[in-house]
C-alpha cells in the first residue's frame, strides 16, 4: 500500500491499526537468477534497480544480520557531488540526481535535505584548489559557488573568524549538498525492492561461493545452498572475507572511522560544514544532535571501535573551528569499518570469476553513493557491461596504473587516504 498524507490522516483517526509490515520475510528458495550478498544500502538499491530498470524477476538479497544493520545505519549521512576527477565526478553527479528524485521514486520519505555544504579553506593555495574543484563541478553540470570570508560569515556567523592560526579565507559552497535519514534510505529501498518481488532474506550468512570451471554457480549459506546464475558481492566492510570465498584477493584494507553525536540542541548549524585544516566536518540532525567526525584512525581494524587519540584530535579541530561547540555534551561515539582502497575510490566491476560481480571499496564515502552504486551495479549485473556513470570504477586500475582516482593527490598506496 502506498504512503500518502491521506493515509496518515486515516490511520490517525482509526488508532493506527492499519499499518502492516512493509516487506515480507520469505524463506530462501533453492535457486535464483541473481543473488546479491549484502542487505545494506548498496545491496538493497542494487536489487531494486535490477527489478525496476532491468525487469529481473528472480532476485534475492542475502543479509547475515538485519536489513540496514551495517554501515548504512552507522554513518554521518552526508549527500554531495563535489568530486574533481573523471570517474568520481560523473558517478557522484549521477548519484545526486537519483537522490533528488528518490522519495517520489520509492514512495518513501528518506528526509533528503539539500541544506547546502560548505568546505572551508584557510590559505591561498587551498583557495586555488577549491576554485579549481568548483570549476570541475560546474563543468560536470553541478553547482558550486566560491565564497569569500564575508560570504562565509553570512552563512556561518558562529565560526571563529578572529583566530590567527587557521584564518578562514572563504569556502566552496555546494547548495545541492546536504543530508538524508540514513536508516530510511535502507528501509525505502527494501520496501520498494520487496514490492517488485525481490526476496529479502535476513539472518542468512553466506559461508561459501560455489565456482565450477571458472563460473559461479551459487552460494552456501547458514540457511542452505542457493543456486544462482549471477552473484553480486556488496558487503563493504567485509569485502575481503567474502571475496576470499571465491579465491579472490582484493586491493582493500579495512580501517576504522569514528563519528560522534551530541545531545539534541535547538537548530544552530544549518548546513554541512567542513574544516579545511583539520579534517573535521559537522552537520545537525533533525533530532537536533550535532553529528561530526574527522580522519580515520589509520590502522587496519575490524574492531568497530576507535581509540582516544583520534577522539582528542576531532574535539580539538571542533573547538578550533567553532568554540561554541564546547557548550555541547557528546552523547555517543562509534566506529565503522571502512573498505579502504589504495586510491581512496570505489570498485564496481566484474571479477575474474564469470558471473561474479564486485561492488566494494567505498572508503569513508559510501552513503551518498547508495543510489548511484545500486543503479550502476544493477546495470553491470544485468547487462554484463558497466553503466557509463561507473565505467572507470575498475578493479584492475591499481595493477595497470591507468585511471587511478586519487582525489586527495596523496598517491595510490594503502594508508594514505
Amino acid at each position, binding site marked *: 500500500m502506498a504512503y500518502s498524507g491521506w493515509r496518515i490522516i486515516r490511520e490517525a483517526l482509526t488508532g493506527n491499526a492499519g499499518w502492516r509490515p512493509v516487506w515480507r520475510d520469505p524463506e530462501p528458495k533453492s535457486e535464483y537468477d541473481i543473488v546479491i550478498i549484502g542487505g545494506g544500502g548498496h545491496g538493497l538499491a542494487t536489487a531494486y534497480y535490477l527489478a525496476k530498470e532491468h525487469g529481473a524477476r528472480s532476485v534475492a538479497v542475502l543479509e547475515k544480520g538485519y536489513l540496514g544493520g551495517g554501515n548504512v545505519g552507522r554513518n554521518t549521512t552526508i549527500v554531495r557531488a563535489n568530486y574533481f576527477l573523471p570517474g568520481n565526478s560523473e558517478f557522484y553527479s549521477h548519484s545526486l540526481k537519483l537522490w533528488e528524485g528518490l522519495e517520489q521514486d520509492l514512495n518513501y520519505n528518506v528526509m533528503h535535505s539539500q541544506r547546502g555544504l560548505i568546505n572551508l579553506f584557510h590559505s591561498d593555495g587551498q583557495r586555488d584548489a577549491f576554485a579549481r574543484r568548483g570549476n570541475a563541478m560546474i563543468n560536470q553540470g553541478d553547482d558550486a559557488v566560491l565564497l569569500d570570508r564575508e560570504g562565509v560569515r553570512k552563512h556561518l556567523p558562529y565560526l571563529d573568524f578572529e583566530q590567527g592560526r587557521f584564518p578562514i579565507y572563504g569556502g566552496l559552497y555546494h547548495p545541492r549538498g546536504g543530508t538524508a535519514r540514513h536508516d530510511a534510505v535502507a528501509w525505502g529501498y527494501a520496501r520498494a525492492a520487496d514490492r517488485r518481488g525481490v526476496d529479502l532474506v535476513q539472518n542468512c550468512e553466506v559461508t561459501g561461493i560455489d565456482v565450477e570451471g571458472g563460473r559461479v554457480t551459487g552460494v552456501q549459506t547458514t540457511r542452505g545452498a542457493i543456486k544462482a546464475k549471477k552473484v553480486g558481492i556488496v558487503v563493504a566492510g*567485509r569485502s*575481503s*572475507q567474502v571475496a*576470499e570465498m571465491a579465491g579472490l*584477493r*582484493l*586491493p*582493500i*584494507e*579495512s580501517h576504522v572511522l569514528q563519528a560522534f553525536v551530541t545531545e539534541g540542541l535547538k537548530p544552530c548549524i544549518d548546513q554541512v560544514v567542513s574544516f579545511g585544516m583539520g579534517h573535521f566536518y559537522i552537520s545537525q540532525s533533525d533530532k537536533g544532535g550535532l553529528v561530526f567526525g574527522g580522519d580515520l584512525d*589509520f*590502522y*587496519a*581494524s*575490524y*574492531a568497530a571501535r576507535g*581509540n582516544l*587519540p583520534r577522539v582528542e584530535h576531532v574535539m580539538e579541530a571542533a573547538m578550533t573551528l567553532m568554540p561554541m561547540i564546547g557548550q555541547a555534551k557528546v552523547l555517543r561515539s562509534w566506529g565503522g569499518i571502512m573498505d579502504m582502497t*589504495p586510491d581512496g575510490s570505489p570498485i564496481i566491476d566484474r571479477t575474474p570469476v564469470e558471473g561474479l560481480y564486485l561492488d566494494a571499496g567505498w572508503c569513508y564515502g559510501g552513503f551518498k553513493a547508495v543510489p548511484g552504486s545500486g543503479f550502476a551495479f544493477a546495470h553491470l549485473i544485468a547487462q554484463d557491461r558497466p553503466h557509463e556513470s561507473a565505467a572507470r570504477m575498475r578493479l584492475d586500475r*591499481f*595493477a595497470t596504473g591507468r585511471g587511478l582516482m586519487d582525489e586527495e593527490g596523496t598517491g595510490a*598506496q*594503502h*594508508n594514505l587516504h
Partner: protein
Amino acid sequence: MRLPCPHCGERDLREFTYKGADLPLPEGPDWGPDWEAYLHLRRNPAGETRDLWYHGPCGSWLSVTRNTATHAVAESRPAREPGS
C-alpha cells in the same frame, strides 16, 4: 590501544605510526603480479595480522602481530631488513 616496543616497553598509540602490512619484498625489480600483490592486494583478515609500525621516540621499525578484531597484540619485534 597501547603497543609494546621491544626497546622501550609498552607505549601509548600516539607515539607510533602505522606503516601497513608486513610483507616480504618481491624478488627482482621488474613489474609483475608479485609486485602488484605486494603493493596493492591484501589478505586483510578479521583476526591475526602482521603489520609494520614506526616508533617515533626511539626511531625503530617494528613488526607487530596483532588481532584486528580485538586489538590484542601477540608479538612485537624489530622489523627485519628489507628483502631478507
